[in-house]
């Protein structure tokens, strides 16, 4: 998977590094002083993740926990995300990471103890807050490399009011299957229509495979959340999404889903430019986009509301609880 592996010398003796080392060839490892000396110092083309993806392993300095924007999650509790990794092995065409970082190379930060210290401080101030993993990466895709989930589960076991959300498109649940599900831990899967998944979710597990994994994890006792985000409009979107709702309902009862978010595709102008450059032949950039109230590129307001309300109603008709459906970033 990785062409080159760079490791900060200050983590060479850590257990977490040695755990990752089991999955990579030792002769690929190059020791460096700091990740920041190399990663992001030059503009590495996003699509080089296809054949020239590098891995960086080190410690995260600076901010480890950030407050999430408004309308990030359900409810009135505070939402935070923690920074444990940068970038993703998948290649979704709408992904904002392509305009966010200067390099697509994966960074794994392994100073989880520092992150957990910050989590403890934050949880002391906001006991019923949420912590989200997967803001800058997929939270499960490389979880077998890092082995970090057990550490976080231990924290959330000892802090039952505080909640953890693991956002993912992955079906890599090996590490989770070794752990006991907790009431305050939620697995949330990003889904789209089958057609949308095929067209835009490059290198991701299919929607069918994700639904199968959702069923497996639900049957094991995990709380499940679903993010239908981003919704990319197509003239057949109602039929396409009804099909996915039906497939999901066959896998798990929709009224047992802890929360469902709906979000329409949106880009910052930097990301939109990258999408057009990276995927010039994709129909993702053919939509009737405008520059909206927050300077993001998206569909106009009546159209967004129509799409979201339509899908919300369809979900309710299919058996979802209205109280758990929320609109993301609207």
């Amino acid at each position, binding site marked *: 998977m990785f062409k080159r592996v760079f490791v900060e010398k200050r983590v060479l003796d850590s257990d977490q590094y040695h755990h990752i080392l089991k999955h990579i060839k030792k002769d690929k490892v190059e020791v460096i002083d700091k990740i920041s000396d190399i990663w992001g110092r*030059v*503009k590495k*083309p996003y699509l080089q993740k296809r054949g020239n993806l590098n891995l960086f392993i080190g410690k995260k300095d600076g901010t480890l926990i950030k407050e999430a924007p408004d309308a990030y999650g359900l409810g009135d509790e505070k939402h935070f995300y923690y920074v444990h990794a940068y970038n993703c092995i998948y290649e979704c065409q709408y992904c904002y990471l392509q305009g966010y970082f200067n390099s697509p190379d994966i960074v794994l930060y392994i100073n989880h103890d520092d992150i957990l210290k910050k989590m403890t401080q934050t949880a002391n101030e906001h006991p019923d807050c949420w912590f989200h993993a997967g803001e800058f990466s997929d939270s499960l895709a490389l979880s077998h490399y890092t082995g970090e989930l057990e550490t976080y589960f231990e924290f959330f076991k000892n802090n039952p009011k505080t909640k953890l959300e693991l956002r993912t498109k992955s079906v890599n649940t090996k590490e989770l299957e070794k752990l006991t599900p907790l009431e305050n831990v939620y697995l949330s899967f990003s889904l789209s229509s089958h057609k949308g998944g095929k067209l835009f979710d490059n290198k991701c597990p299919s929607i069918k495979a994700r639904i199968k994994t959702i069923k497996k994890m639900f049957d094991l006792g995990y709380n499940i959340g679903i993010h239908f985000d981003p919704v990319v409009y197509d003239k057949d979107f109602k039929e396409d999404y009804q099909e996915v709702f039906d497939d999901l309902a066959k896998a798990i009862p929709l009224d047992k889903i802890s929360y469902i978010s709906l979000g329409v595709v949106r880009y910052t102008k930097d990301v939109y430019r990258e999408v057009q450059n990276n995927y010039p032949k994709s129909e993702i950039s*053919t939509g009737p986009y405008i*520059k909206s109230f927050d300077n993001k590129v998206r569909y106009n307001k009546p159209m967004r*509301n*129509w799409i979201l309300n339509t899908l919300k109603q369809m979900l309710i008709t299919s058996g979802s609880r209205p109280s758990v459906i929320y609109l993301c970033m609207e």
Partner: protein
Amino acid sequence: MNLLHFAHAGEAQSFISHFDLTAVSEDNIYLGENMIVQICGEGLFDSMYKLGHTIAKYKINKIINIGIAGSLVDELKVDDIIEVRTSYAFGEISPKFNSYTTQDIDSKFDCISCELRAIDPKYAKLITPFAHIVDRELWAVGKVSKYFKIPLHSIKLISDNAHDEVNCLEIKDKAQDYSLQLLEYYLNKNYDHEVQSESDMIYPFVMTHYLKKKYEKTIKKLLKKSFSNIQEILEQINLEEITDLKLREKEKSLLLIEKLEELLNPIDKTIKKKIDILFKPLLDAKVDIGLDPKLEVQKFKLSKEINSQKNIDDLADALKNFDFKKVEDFWKGDLDV
């Protein structure tokens, strides 16, 4: 014509004699029928300003940088010839942010162009994380080619390993050999074929520049969808019907573009129809409606010419019959028509 860029005369010599090029100036430019060879010298800045000058003077379709480079990785050995994917640059102590990618995006190798000669293994260690080979010009050539929007290729022959002590004189002595090897590679690549143009655009009507751009943009988007060619698109919208209308070319063009945009995004037609229905009472009373064209701002302006009491009465009637709640519902997503 193609512009072959070299740093050194030694590497260019075989090209000059093979293509029978003629020296045209003291700027180390050699001209052939469809080719220019320019020898810019070593370093970023010389390449930048000299290339810029040449591009301004001649019609250049393609730039091909050719030369030697040092290997930074074990997998590249002396005498290997590669094509470069992306070029980076390194100053005296730190990298430059911008990078430039060539047309050879499937190549596996990147190049870092350094301000200093990479003859010191310590310097080589500093630059190794960024690329696979090191030279002194390619990044500058990339910068120029991007600025002028000219496609770029780069062929490099590995002359040394940058992590070992480098003997520049030894490399210079082998210049003729390198030049022949590079020429052979170049000839096998066949860079001289004509640049393929994009599929021809069909313009059914005479269009202004603005309408042409709008038309082209919509057609290109439609080609990304399920249509395989422009003819298919024009048949879908019944072009013949528009052609038969007794309208001026400009009006036909506008109608054509409208139909293409409806085909691209049918939802826009639904929204437009909804707006017409919502504002019908006012439109019938000849009131102009000023809506945000992006439909993001939830407000609108009304204007009407008043020159009689009847105008005021008509306006009053129209406002009485106007249901603002339905407009609010429209903003909230009610698009039923």
